[in-house]
């Protein structure tokens, strides 16, 4: 008589049932990378890199949409310019500059580390990129708001 295989043993079907997959983060599994509370600097850098990437993509589409106002005429463009030179709008541009700076500088870090060139300097590169991005963003914001 043949021995039963592991799949034929009593209770095999019940044992094959699995529970949910636990994950970090507040939402569905696909957002497991986004919650910074349970991450270290590398995970937070990854989350910030993705979020700033989304900001940049959103800006690009907005930019193309705004440029299409030129097709409407001079008056539409002039009224739009008065809106974007308001200080509240410039604050949004400061956020955009910060996003571009972090994304670009962290992208250099990712390229250097991810290609195996500066693996042991990974943490130092993160803090260097973050510090440069923060300082440059503050200076740019002050300049745009007329404080410099």
């Amino acid at each position, binding site marked *: 008589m043949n021995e039963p*295989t*592991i799949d034929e043993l009593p209770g095999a079907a019940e044992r094959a*049932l*699995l*529970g*949910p*997959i*636990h*994950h*970090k*983060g507040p939402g569905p*599994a*696909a957002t*497991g*990378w986004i919650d910074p*509370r*349970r*991450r*270290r*600097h*590398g*995970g937070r*850098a*990854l*989350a910030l*890199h993705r979020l700033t990437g989304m900001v940049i993509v959103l800006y690009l589409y907005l930019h193309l949409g705004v440029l299409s106002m030129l097709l409407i005429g001079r008056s539409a463009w002039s009224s739009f310019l008065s809106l974007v030179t308001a200080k509240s709008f410039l604050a949004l541009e400061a956020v955009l500059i910060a996003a571009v700076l972090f994304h670009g500088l962290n992208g250099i*870090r*990712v390229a250097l*580390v*991810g*290609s*195996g*060139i500066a*693996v*042991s300097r*990974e*943490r130092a590169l993160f803090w260097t990129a973050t510090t440069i991005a923060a300082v440059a963003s503050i200076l740019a914001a002050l300049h745009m708001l007329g404080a410099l």
Partner: protein
Amino acid sequence: MSEPADTRRFRVFRYKRGDGGERFDEFDVPVGPHSTVLDALRWIQLHRDSSLTLRHSCLHASCGCCGMQVDGREELACVCSVQDHGAQITVEPLANLPILTDLVVEMSGFFARFPHEHPIIRSSEAPADVERGEGIESQHAEVVLQTDITLHHHPLHHLHGAAPPGADFMRLEDCIECGLCLSACPIAATSQEYVGPAALAAAERLLEEPRGVKREDVLAWASRPEAVWRCHVGFECTKACPTDAIPAERIMALRRELMFDGNEGKDAKR
């Protein structure tokens, strides 16, 4: 004289099939200066709720069984001191693996990620019931032992890549296969297809010491879309690893190999 105890509140993740889904139960546990999280969980089992299920074995960070999340960070409960945590300690199962019950996850999905077509085994670790012929020291005999006998003929090798019943151990040195790296990995959180840090580290270890496995085969395996290029340089795996197997650094070494030296792997990319 017994040690003076203070009390910590443990929020413990609970899940039983068909029992109303996931929840947290709270227990006040007396702890001493040297208590570990595993000590506390076993105390809960003994004195408060015997239905609490967890997995543990060696009690000294060697077997990798008791991996779980403690306050959101991956830890081996047997060496995780309660004193390193606050008045309330949250304990959850590992992330990114299916839960079987309470703090126990199904690990077969973790082992299935390893490149079982390139088994990592030394002749000294071969199953005891494998007859070793003369010339086993030769590379050819070792390859036969590794690839044909040890794994490929065993009915469970497709499931978890582990040794057959009665066999000696087989594992990547340093890696205790606890799954903490996979739980910490933000990419594994978004993709179940990603092979994960431990398997990639094992592949890189094969490049260091091929043991008869073809280097180009390992590189081809590692260069698949769901393998080395899915890593986003988070380094969470290395930080979580309890044995300093440095999986992230090994993944970067694999990439460097593929980019600068590994022309063999390029042809195999899908």
